[in-house]
């Protein structure tokens, strides 16, 4: 094929698509949807990956927890079974702290939720955690303004608290952290003095991580009693000791629950952050699979629509094909002309898909508050795959056009 003939084919294809704008647009929908879905999902998940990696690596793999219920329950059976367990108590925490030689720091946390009030301002359902002082180190909680409570305040169960920055916005009208320190708020109706404001943690998956109140564990016990099951947080000094520490804690806890080696049910949950990462990895790979499935279906449907439209186009332009053949267009040329038209059609679809996919990802990442990571390879892949769809679905119509008998074709109206 000579370049001049190739360029002519290109020109004709563009002119034909331009002449039928509405039809071109409708034809493209399938391809656009397919490509946009992939691009949006790939982009969003890349952004999520970044968020997840930075969030979880800040705590690292030196921390694990012991609790009654696992953090993630995937079935009803597991939930029922876990609920039958004995609560994790202060006694368990003391035993772990005393007996686990590989453990570096041990902390206790208890969870509840209360309304927090300042004057006539209030915030409902604020998570309130009673924590031991070691939790500030284990969870790496930094204080932005003020201070953590002192050891004596802890022992004496003073009504003091450290709050997350969301509370500043919700009940102090967005005042600076320094101005909140020293004020008195009511937590569940009980007056507390704010001694410190924690540093902002940001959001994950669109949820704020700064809406909380921390109070000394003895104060918590005084307020809420000791009925609820506790969370024991254990930190090891280096990741290398993690396994040894987990083994020791497991042995201590099993012994305290009278479990033998043969008992499959341990009677407690021992977990690291990996639980989240594993679940996240599983979830995203499922999302990828579903998206690829959706995209494949819409690309196949889109390809069939393109083939159909190309057949219509060949029929409509039979006369034109006849004229071109009469004045010397060879089969290869006619074939190329229609193939170019089909590929141009789907490549435009692919490009529109890439753009709308990125736009969709942008909107979602903006609303959910995670970074937008546009990747060139996904754009290139989107356009290439849709071009291949064009070649496949254009081949038969183009071949039909190329094989037209010029005499018959010239007779067409």
């Amino acid at each position, binding site marked *: 094929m000579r370049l*001049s003939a190739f360029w*002519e084919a290109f020109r004709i294809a563009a002119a034909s698509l331009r002449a039928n704008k509405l039809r071109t647009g409708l034809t493209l929908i399938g391809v656009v949807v397919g490509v946009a879905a992939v691009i949006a999902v790939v982009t969003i998940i890349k952004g999520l990956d970044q968020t997840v990696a930075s969030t979880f690596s800040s705590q690292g793999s030196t921390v694990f927890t012991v609790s009654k219920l696992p953090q993630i329950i995937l079935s009803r059976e597991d939930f029922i079974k876990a609920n039958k367990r004995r609560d994790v108590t202060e006694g368990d925490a003391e035993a772990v702290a005393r007996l686990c030689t590989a453990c570096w720091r041990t902390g206790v946390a208890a969870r509840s939720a209360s309304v927090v009030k300042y004057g006539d301002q209030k915030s409902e359902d604020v998570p309130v955690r009673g924590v031991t002082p070691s939790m500030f180190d284990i969870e790496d909680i930094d204080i932005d303004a003020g201070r953590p409570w002192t050891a004596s305040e802890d022992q004496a169960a003073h009504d003091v608290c450290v709050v997350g920055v969301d509370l500043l916005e919700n009940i102090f009208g967005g005042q600076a952290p320094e101005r909140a320190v020293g004020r008195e708020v009511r937590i569940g109706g009980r007056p507390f003095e704010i001694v410190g404001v924690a540093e902002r943690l940001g959001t994950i998956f669109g949820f704020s991580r700064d809406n909380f109140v921390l109070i000394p564990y003895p104060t918590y016990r005084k307020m809420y009693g000791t009925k609820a099951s506790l969370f024991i947080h254990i930190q090891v000094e280096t990741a290398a000791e993690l396994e040894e520490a987990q083994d020791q804690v497991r042995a201590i806890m099993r012994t305290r629950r009278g479990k033998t080696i043969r008992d499959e049910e341990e009677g407690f949950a021992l977990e690291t952050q990996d639980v989240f990462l594993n679940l996240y990895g599983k979830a995203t790979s499922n999302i990828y699979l579903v998206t690829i499935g959706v995209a494949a279906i819409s690309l196949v449907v889109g390809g069939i629509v393109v083939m159909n439209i190309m057949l219509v186009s060949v029929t409509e332009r039979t006369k*034109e094909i006849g004229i*071109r053949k009469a004045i*010397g267009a060879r089969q290869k040329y006619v074939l190329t002309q229609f193939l170019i038209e089909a590929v141009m059609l789907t490549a435009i679809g692919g490009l529109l898909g890439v753009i709308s996919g990125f736009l969709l990802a942008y909107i979602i990442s903006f609303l959910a508050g995670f970074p937008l990571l546009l990747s060139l390879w996904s754009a290139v892949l989107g356009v290439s795959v849709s071009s291949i769809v064009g070649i496949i679905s254009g081949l038969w119509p183009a071949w039909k056009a190329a094989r037209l008998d010029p*005499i018959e074709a010239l007779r067409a109206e």
Partner: protein
Amino acid sequence: MSNVILAAPPQTAALDHGDLLAHDAVPASLISMRDIWKTYQMGAEEVHALRGVEFDVHKGEYLAIIGPSGSGKSTLMNLIGCLDTPTRGRYWINGKLVSEMNDDELARIRNQEVGFVFQTFNLLARASALHNVELPLIYAGVGSAERHEKARQSLTAVDLADRMMHRPNELSGGQRQRVAIARALVNHPSILLADEPTGALDSATSHEIMNLFERLHAEGNTIIVVTHEPDIAARAHRIISIRDGHIERDERTK
């Protein structure tokens, strides 16, 4: 392609022109047809559209082919124009044996040797006059600068220098046919083949187009006009009459 059915022609057809040289050597004339048969399969029946047609056309001739509808006139035109190949027989154009060619080789011959002028003009509706005239050059692989220049010259030769960027629907019937003639001539073909070139035109415009043909003939072009109108045929210097797939008469009129 039509079904190719080999019907045995009468032996005499070949013997009458027992000119063995014509079969074995390349003829000197521009167009040379020898024992041309075209047979179509219509259901169970074989229809012979052409039954052993033979004639020669020399360079610079102005020839008309006439005949009533169904005479085989159109079939003959398609064969001369290399749009189709005969069921049997040999056809040379400019020394090339086209009766044995495949589709792509025929396309090449149509591009290089034949300039078509159709009754309904057959211009590309979306393209300018200039682009329509450039089309044969595109398929011939001529570069764009040269292509532009040649198309411009060709349009100027048919007095359309001021209408080059117009589309067919912005031109009158006569102007459209002149664009078609410019397109037919742009590649300097061996023959200009016109199929009822005035069939869609009023009489004044017909006259104008026929004058143009006369001028082109005078300039040395070989012209074959296929028509059923006697007064159009009368302009030619030689008339071949077709009836029932035979050449009924072949007479020089001027």
